[in-house]
């Protein structure tokens, strides 16, 4: 406030000096003016900018979005001793008045004065020439429709100038800033949601508004995306290492040498017997203490790989040991050595058998990357936690849940399909030879056959139950929880 007064006073002085020769008078008038201004800030000597606002775009919700047609409303008051003949308004680079049309409203007190004018646009400024001078003290309102703010978004002030009837040019005060939202499809969508009555109704429900606020869900998806990539990146980077390590320790654990077996057992049991959370803390806080500084993401990959490898080692060992002795004997009877037997007979069968269990473990690892948020890895949990803190809304967590689910749900489905396929091929069904409908047979007949096949399929599935159960038993402990012991099937030593 005080700043504005000072400003007005300075201008008033300079103005006065030009108009009135007597210095004494000028001083006294100035004093009076200062006093008056203090009481009535509106009645200025020079033209003042009262306000500049932009109307939200069509369907734009409550925000003003850049690079979309909007209406800029500018209001100013003509100074007491002035008569204004033209006004120029400018916005920063990127704004455009090119297709704008301008409506002029002049109010003298409460009376509308009809004054016409012509507006000429040139890029980011518009120049309005009035048909006659606007008298002192009048309020001028310029409503410029179909103009656009810069696409980038940000806070923009309307600047410009005006000319008085005597041909003098003056500078206009900057308006208060107008906040413009960057023009992204997302923002457009959010703004659209803001404007929808059903969204308002939805959000008025305390539960829905807190957990599933549509606008926030949308922005959360965008903000969480990098975190999701980090999660995927970590688990995808760690898993090949985990598989190789796991296979190595599975081999060690089934080795004939006592020492190798002991090493494998220690490794596997220590990692499976302690929480991953603890392992993360030990590595992330421990390594820097001894001067080893590894990038957070890389260390995350390492910790996850080592942890997963212990579980995979058990899965692989159980898988290898589930291959019947007869397979080893058949390979041996052909003269294969141990390596050939392992690589071309045992492991290929093991892979088929462990794929469901390994996939379940992958799902677990993917979810467990969330624990890395506690040590500052910028993954999904971290992003959603931050967003929830700033918005005070739970919706970002829900968005995170969806990001986890879009990976885990299809994988869970895949596990089911593979389990069924294995059960089917183990029982000897396999892909059945294609049966062609007999030529000339009616639609009805072939449909009946289809149904028959379908019901036969069902009974086969029933028959396959025992085989399926074996795999369920093998994988069940992982499906439910990662740290549950493998139980009888896997640990049958």
């Amino acid at each position, binding site marked *: 406030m005080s700043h504005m007064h000072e400003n007005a006073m300075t201008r008033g002085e300079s103005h006065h000096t030009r108009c009135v020769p007597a210095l004494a008078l000028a001083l006294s008038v100035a004093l009076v003016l200062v006093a008056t201004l203090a009481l009535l800030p509106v009645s200025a000597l020079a033209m003042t900018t009262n306000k500049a606002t932009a109307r939200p775009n069509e369907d734009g919700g409550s925000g003003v979005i850049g690079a979309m047609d909007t209406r800029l409303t500018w209001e100013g008051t003509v100074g007491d001793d002035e008569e204004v003949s033209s006004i120029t308004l400018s916005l920063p680079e990127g704004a455009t008045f090119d297709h704008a049309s301008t409506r002029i409203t002049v109010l003298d007190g409460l009376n509308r004065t009809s004054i016409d004018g012509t507006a000429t646009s040139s890029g980011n400024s518009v120049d309005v020439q009035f048909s006659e001078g606007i008298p002192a003290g009048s309020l001028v309102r310029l409503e410029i429709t179909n103009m656009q703010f810069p696409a980038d978004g940000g806070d923009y002030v309307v600047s410009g100038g005006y000319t008085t009837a005597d041909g003098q040019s003056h500078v206009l005060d900057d308006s208060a800033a107008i906040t413009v939202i960057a023009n992204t499809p997302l923002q457009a969508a959010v703004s659209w949601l803001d404007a929808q009555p059903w969204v308002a109704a939805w959000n008025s429900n305390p539960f829905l508004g807190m957990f599933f606020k549509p606008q926030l869900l949308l922005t959360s998806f965008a903000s969480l995306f990098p975190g999701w990539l980090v999660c995927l990146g970590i688990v995808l980077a760690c898993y090949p290492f985990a598989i190789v390590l796991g296979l190595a320790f599975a081999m060690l654990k089934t080795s004939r040498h006592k020492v190798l077996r002991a090493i494998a057992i220690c490794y596997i049991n220590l990692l499976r017997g302690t929480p991953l959370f603890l392992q993360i803390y030990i590595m992330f806080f421990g390594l820097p203490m001894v001067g080893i500084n590894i990038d957070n993401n890389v260390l995350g990959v390492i910790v996850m790989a080592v942890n997963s490898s212990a579980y995979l080692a058990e899965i692989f060992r159980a898988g290898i040991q589930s291959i019947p002795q*007869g*397979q080893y004997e058949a390979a041996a009877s052909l*003269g294969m050595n141990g390596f050939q037997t392992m690589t071309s*007979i045992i492991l290929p*069968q093991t892979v088929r058998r462990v794929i469901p269990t390994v996939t379940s473990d992958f799902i677990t690892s993917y979810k467990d990357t969330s624990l890395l948020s506690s040590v500052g890895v910028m993954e999904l949990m971290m992003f959603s936690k931050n967003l929830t803190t700033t918005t005070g809304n739970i919706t970002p967590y829900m968005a995170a849940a969806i990001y986890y689910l879009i990976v885990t749900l299809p994988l869970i489905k895949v596990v089911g399909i593979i389990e069924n396929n294995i059960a089917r091929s183990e029982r000897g069904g396999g892909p059945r030879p294609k049966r062609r409908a007999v030529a000339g047979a009616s639609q009805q007949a072939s449909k009946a056959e289809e149904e028959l096949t379908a019901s036969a399929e069902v009974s086969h599935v029933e028959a396959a139950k025992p085989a399926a159960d074996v795999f369920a038993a093998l994988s069940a402990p992982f499906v439910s929880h990662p740290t549950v012991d493998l139980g009888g099937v896997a640990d049958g030593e």
Partner: protein
Amino acid sequence: MASKHRHSHGDVPVVPDALSAEEAANLAFASDQTLTKHHFTEGEHPIVRIEHLNKSFDETKVLRDVNLDVWPGEVVVVLGPSGSGKSTMLRCINLLETPTAGHILIEDQEITGQSKTDVNKLRREVGMVFQSFNLFPHLTAKQNVMIGQTKVLKRSKEDAEAEAMKQLTAVGLADRADFKPPQLSGGQQQRVAIARAVAMHPNVLLFDEPTSALDPELVRGVLDVIRDLAENSGMTMIVVTHEMDFAREVADRVVFMEDGVVVEQGVPEKVFDHPENARTAEFLGSIG
């Protein structure tokens, strides 16, 4: 002799050293004349020699001083009640079991007490067909027959494939070449297993109850394949079976085992029609 050193624990039977090749050949030539229909000549050496073979599992003595010579091209059928040690004897021949004492010689080469690689080399020479087929379920029938050829014999893929198709045709399964074992019947699986063993061109082929796991209606097809091999391939075969008619038909010699010993052996007509041993007679009576 090597086995004596390796198995110092328990009461390991003390057996004499293996005979020299000449000595063994002469002895076998003298004794086997009346025991087999197979024709062999003086100076020829038995391809498989089993001398004083003993095998124990922990305290259980399963084989007790088994002695047997098998001539090149001979078809020997081994009979005997369940648990008499027939499988164990076969498994000792390709070292799936390690003999506790005694000697097994193949082409006059002692196989007991060899290094790892030698064992693998020996096993190429000795094929085996298992009671439970033991096909590789992740491979097609053709791949099952090819894998030993390519991995072990290092045959080219083309050669192995040609050989595989030849053997699958021989067992009547050319049209099932691209089926995986679970898609085949038990009889078909066993025929693929036979093709797999034969494709390695072993010197000796062992059959351990090849039809015992089959439904009765599938037995015949498998026996036909084995009979064809016995009559036309000239391969040395040792067949453990309970199929008496088949044994009588294809065997050059029948060996009857009981309780870990060879109780009686001879040409099929002799063993089947005029068994000398009471246990043999009883067993054949109960079966036939």
